[in-house]
């Protein structure tokens, strides 16, 4: 039972310098769900995510956002990106600005509905992640986890429909990872569609509604998280998954010790 997709990618293909990065990927992001893209390094999962907000332009395929093809339409890339928030692996806060200015730069420059009520929105969100008192700090004065939460809020101030997370837990300690998980379930993010690229199986298991497994630029599996982590997958897929991502073995063994 799938909710109506807010985003759907159809047959996305990309070749860079003769190397096939994406070989016809299909992906649907249902409203309000967390879709986790898993896969080994170099499988193309990050590239696929960058295609979603047009930071990377695929050679062919369609990307439908609310039913509209954003890849082949005349809509300008900035207008599309305003509806799709992204949090980078390195957080990438603007180093020369305070936290507060980081949050307000985009709505201020964009204007219109984006600027309307931006200060209140930013303050509320910042308060929500417990960093209101840090509004005057510069990025280098914050911990990694704090920077990440500010980066999330920076995207949220633009009121996007979808949020993209690139390897969000790669540099976080267990405590910060737990805070991130909580944030996923908070009022600001809960109902929003989220796409998470990660190799962190544990995190995937805790937040995902749906798992998409990518290998060599192709979608190998697209299952509900419950199904995926049950280990009750076809034998060929099971062998493939445990071979390409040995970490999965542990997950499966917890679930089904008899299969080891």
């Amino acid at each position, binding site marked *: 039972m799938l909710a109506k997709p807010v985003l759907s990618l159809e047959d996305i293909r990309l070749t860079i310098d003769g190397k096939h990065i994406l070989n016809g990927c299909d992906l649907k992001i249902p409203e309000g769900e967390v879709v986790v893209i898993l896969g080994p390094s170099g499988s193309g999962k990050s590239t696929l995510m960058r295609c979603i*907000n047009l*930071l990377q332009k695929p050679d062919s395929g369609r990307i439908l956002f609310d039913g509209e093809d954003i890849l082949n339409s005349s809509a300008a*890339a*900035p*207008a*599309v*990106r*305003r*509806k799709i*928030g*992204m949090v*980078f692996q*390195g957080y*990438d*806060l*603007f*180093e*020369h600005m*305070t*936290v*507060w*200015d980081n949050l307000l*730069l*985009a709505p201020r*420059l*964009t204007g219109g509905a984006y600027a309307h009520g931006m*200060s*209140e929105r*930013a*303050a*509320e969100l*910042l*308060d929500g992640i417990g960093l*209101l*008192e840090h*509004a*005057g*700090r*510069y990025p*280098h*004065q914050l911990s990694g986890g704090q920077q990440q939460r500010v980066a999330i809020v*920076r*995207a949220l101030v*633009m009121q996007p429909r979808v949020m993209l997370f690139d390897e969000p837990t790669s540099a976080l300690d267990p405590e910060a990872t737990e805070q991130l998980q909580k944030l996923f379930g908070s009022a600001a993010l809960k109902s929003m569609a989220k796409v998470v690229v990660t190799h962190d199986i544990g995190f995937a298991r805790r937040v995902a509604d749906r798992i998409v497994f990518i290998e060599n630029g192709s979608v190998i599996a697209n299952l509900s998280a419950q199904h995926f982590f049950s280990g009750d997958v076809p034998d060929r897929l099971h062998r493939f998954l445990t071979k390409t991502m040995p970490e999965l073995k542990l997950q499966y063994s917890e679930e089904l010790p008899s299969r080891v």
Partner: protein
Amino acid sequence: MRLISLLALLLTLPCLAHAQNADAENHNAIAGTVTAGYLTYGTAATFPPFEFVKDGSLVGFDIDLAAEVASRMHLASSPVNMEFGGLIPALIGHRIDVINSAMYLSPEREGVVDFVPYLSISSVVLVPRDSRLPVTGYDLSLCGLRVGVTLGGIEMRDADKATENCLQNKKPALIILPYPTAQNTALNLLQERTDAAFTSQFGAAVLMQEVPGRYRVAGRPFGTEGQIGLAVAKTNPELRGSLTKAVQELKKDGRLDQLIKKWHLNRGQDVSDVEESGKASDWWVTVKLTLDYLVSPPFLKGAGITLFLTTSSLIVGSLIGIILAVISGGRFGFFRLSVMIYLWLFRGTPVLLQIVFIYNVLPLLGLKLAALTSAVLALSLNEGAYMAEIARSGLDAVKPEQKTAGLALGLSPLSVFRCITAPQAFRITLPMLGNQVIGLLKSSALVSVIAVPELLLAADQAASANFRYIEALSAAAIYYLAFTSLFMLLQRYLEQSLAPGKSSSEKALHRAQAAMESVR
């Protein structure tokens, strides 16, 4: 921001200032002179009593002569004051109609310009008053001594002849030391860098009046075949004809003799009789005169022009640099190649060459710019080449992820450049920019060669009128140091206001808290 628009306004000023000139230049072809109705002449006002600056205005025998000659040609005279070395290039580049700067006729010069001679001049051997060397005049007593002469002047030929004479008599040659102006020659004699100097009899007379008790003339004047004349371009025989006619008239009706008397040129016949008078300056006189110079119109104007040259070239150069840095980072092969050639040309040649090229060579190719415009253009183009490299290094130092993060928020590439990349690059390059500005301030002194009356030219001319080098150069140095300090303070202020600071932190926190209050 407001500062920038003010500077932008300043940039347009030279256009306004020269609008009048440009208008007059339109009539060139008809009237046959550079500026219709005027006899425009170049002069290097560092050669009293012929041409020098006194109390801010040009005076001297030649200045009066030009007025006389011009009026007999039914023209008004219009002087352009510049360095002596820039005179012939300016004449060839159609910047001026005539050189009127007590220029000696020499075979080398006659190869490139035509002369209308108006006066014969003898030279003298000048020595320090208390010299113990047995110099007896223009003879064998000079052999083996260090003799100062003026670069390109007739004295150089005199020195060569003296050397020949020494060698024929099995004596050592003269050690000839050429200096750029007659004043330099005299000054270096006083400082014992030379043992004797050759100078014109008139120059010697003025020298002994202005700096009494320091010099004496050895022996009798020599070299009466020396002649000075007005120089005209070889392409302009008509002008030469009418000048010759005017000079002959002046000689015939006695006006030339009157001028010779007015400027005491006849007194030079017997220079050794000038008495010692006055006394050596004490420190108070020096301080007083330095302060007088600081507030005198030529220095104020010079300082203003120096500041204008620096700021306008900085702004135009920065714009060129930023544009080039962005282009050369792009993927268009043609642009990248053009940028490389530009950088190669302007970083690979001296600024002085670029200045002279733009002012004196471009007119030959059909592009004639006013002196101030040429100066700003040359300095800006040179600055742009260095700025391009600085801007490039600054932009490269900004992490590419910063730009991507800005794009991902839905900002346009221009907004990303303006609000994210450029401010970070600017902060990184600020120390280098500080160096550039100070370098530029000092390079601006080079444009004196094309007659832009900036600070150093003002100082040089003030000193050449009375030999008060210490005072004139001190006054110029005070201005330069003041400007340098100003730029250093500005740099520090910018560094502090751009660096993550306490005040901006507090401001941001207050705003956030206020916004939160309004939500609650």
